[in-house]
């Protein structure tokens, strides 16, 4: 699955309104101000609905969600656990 492109498209359309120049795969979503605390909830909802998984409270940490690369890694690890 091409998580990278899907997640990038979601962030660009939901938070950057098409302005993709400011987003790299390792851009910190919090530090850059792209996502705030409500935005994190939006991201979690998107990941749960799109990839049919439940993100547990202990998993809602920046290490798992704060950049495209981190989200991709998190999803890949979750996928590997299910397989």
């Amino acid at each position, binding site marked *: 699955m091409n998580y990278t492109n899907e997640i990038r498209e979601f962030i660009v359309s939901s938070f950057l309104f098409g302005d993709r120049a400011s987003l790299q795969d390792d851009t910190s979503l919090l530090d850059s101000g792209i996502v*705030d*605390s*409500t935005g994190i*909830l939006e991201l979690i909802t998107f990941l749960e609905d799109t990839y049919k998984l439940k993100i547990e409270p202990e998993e809602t*940490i920046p290490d798992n969600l704060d950049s495209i690369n981190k989200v991709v890694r998190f999803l890949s690890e979750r996928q590997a656990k299910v397989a």
Partner: protein
Amino acid sequence: MVVSITFKLETPFKMHQRTFSAALLKLDCEKEMARIETVMRETVLRQFRKKGVVLGMSGGVDSSVVAAMAVRILGKERVFGLLMPERDSAGDTLSLSKLMAEHLGIEYATEDISPILEVVGCYRRRDEAIRRVIPEYAEGDKNKIALPALGDKQSYRLFKVVVQHKDGRLAEANLDLKSYLGIVAATNFKQRTRKMLEYYYADSMNFAVAGTPNRLEYDQGFFVKLGDGTADIKPIAHLYKTQVYQMAEFLKLPEIIRSRPPTTDTYSLPQSQEEFYFSLPYDKMDQVLYGKNNGYSAAEIGQGMGLSAEQVERVLADIEGKRKVANYLHAAPAVVEDIR
């Protein structure tokens, strides 16, 4: 022989010269009152041409201090208090606000806003949002939303709802986006309804409306847009909460008002302001905010507070994040070109 000596500036220029400590928040209350008096007289009486001020009084220290200031500056006949409890209000809200109004000798009115909130669906909409995550939540159960404390590790602070059923059992659940927005939107009716009534009385008396946010609330967006965030004058918006308490003592407010812990008084379960919004208790938030506003480093602030620089950095990041959200709350309507 010519000796050339070059001095290299090792330390960056600082805005301040004093070591960071809580004592930096000590206020000259007399001088501050004079400053507030000048602004209140100039804006309310001369600029707005209003006869006095109306304010909502909750029995909390902020609205009590603003009311006492207004009485001192304008005279008690020019200050009108509005007491606006609703069914989720704390048990002592009405008695404390009444006590304060009578202590000042001002005219006041009591308007229970529960019927308005019922009609507009405040409680029903809030309860529907809660039931999305706690299906067994029933009418009459108590509730609040809460944030986890700022922990040792970097983590997101995501809201959860806490419910106390009628039989005393507690339940809690993390809020998803729809539930979180639904609960906040529904409970915002409370602040907006109160503001609607304040302006009704203000319009009918040709008074202005005084708002009561303190600096921490104003800076951090701890208010509802077009609710308690709206007013014609906000006399204590520049004062840290710690300083508001100093003014309360200076103005000789009743001890019971001065000693009441800050709450949101929005949810039926008691909810502290740091559970709902802030990272730390108000006195510590004040210190970090003061340090940030006056050019102190995280290390300097931490040393003065007994916290690590890393802990202070996390609070500073939280402050900065909330300031960004507060931009929207403070913003005037956008217009295409300058009209006036």
